[in-house]
């Protein structure tokens, strides 16, 4: 498990070197466009983590197996971490390009709503431990996922300052290969790092459950 973490950190460092030193500079935006190499991977990891949260929550509600609940909680923490990074790196990209740190644009606003929903999920887990809290949180996690398609399609349905998708679009990526390759490499690096953190977190929850069981059996 430690090896996966080291591999993830190494890949992120290599990806950063590729993005900052080797990838070509964008003609209009210039240097700030390089923020894309951390902004987009953060979004991808956050979306995948949310997928895991939703699936694990549904399976927990269906089977009542605590292992699925532990997976949902671990993935939710990662989702919040990477949504936060998405918002922060987006603001840092927006300031030099749009001239503002934040605007109440449809995509930005729906992403902020998503962040609040899953911070709420973590707060619920902290304040309402036990089976009932876990079930309520699982329902919240599934309902919160409804915001994801809104975020994705907001740039298509509404006039927004945020640009439309340049990678995940029906016509194929709009980026040149010299930018797409480092973007994919950075996304893979972020995914490896996030997987290592997820596995660590699940192992902790399992150890905690075992410790609590010992405590309860001791009276």
């Amino acid at each position, binding site marked *: 498990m430690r090896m996966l973490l080291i591999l993830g950190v190494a890949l992120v460092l290599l990806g950063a070197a590729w993005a900052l030193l080797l990838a070509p500079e964008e003609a209009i935006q210039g240097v700030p466009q390089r923020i894309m190499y*951390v902004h987009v991977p953060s979004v991808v990891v956050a979306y995948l983590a949310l997928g895991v949260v939703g699936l694990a929550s549904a399976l927990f509600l269906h089977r009542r197996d605590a292992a699925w609940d532990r997976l949902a909680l671990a993935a939710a923490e990662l989702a919040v971490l990477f949504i936060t*990074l998405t918002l922060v790196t987006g603001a840092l990209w927006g300031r030099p390009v749009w001239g503002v740190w934040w605007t109440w644009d449809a995509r930005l606003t729906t992403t902020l709503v998503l962040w609040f929903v899953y911070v709420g999920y973590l707060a619920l887990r902290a304040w309402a431990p036990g089976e009932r809290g876990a079930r309520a949180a699982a329902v919240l996690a599934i309902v919160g996922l409804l915001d994801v398609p809104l975020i994705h399609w907001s740039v298509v349905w509404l006039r927004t300052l945020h640009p439309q998708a340049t990678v995940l679009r029906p016509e194929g990526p709009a980026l040149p290969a010299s930018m797409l390759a480092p973007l994919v490499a950075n996304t893979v690096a972020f995914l490896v790092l996030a997987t290592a953190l997820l596995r660590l977190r699940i192992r902790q929850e399992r150890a905690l459950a075992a410790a609590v069981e010992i405590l309860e059996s001791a009276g």
Partner: protein
Amino acid sequence: MIFVAAAYLAVVVAVGCYALTLRARQRLIRELADAWRPSAADGASMPRGAADSRRAAP
């Protein structure tokens, strides 16, 4: 350039803080588990300190 540096710094700080939190939590769980590990001598579960004091009693 400052915005790009700040974005990378944000990634390092966020992931680094989360990793440190995981490490601290891991240490707490280990201490908790060690303190309440079932005693091999009598099979009962009790705090390590309590087990030691009982053995020392006449």
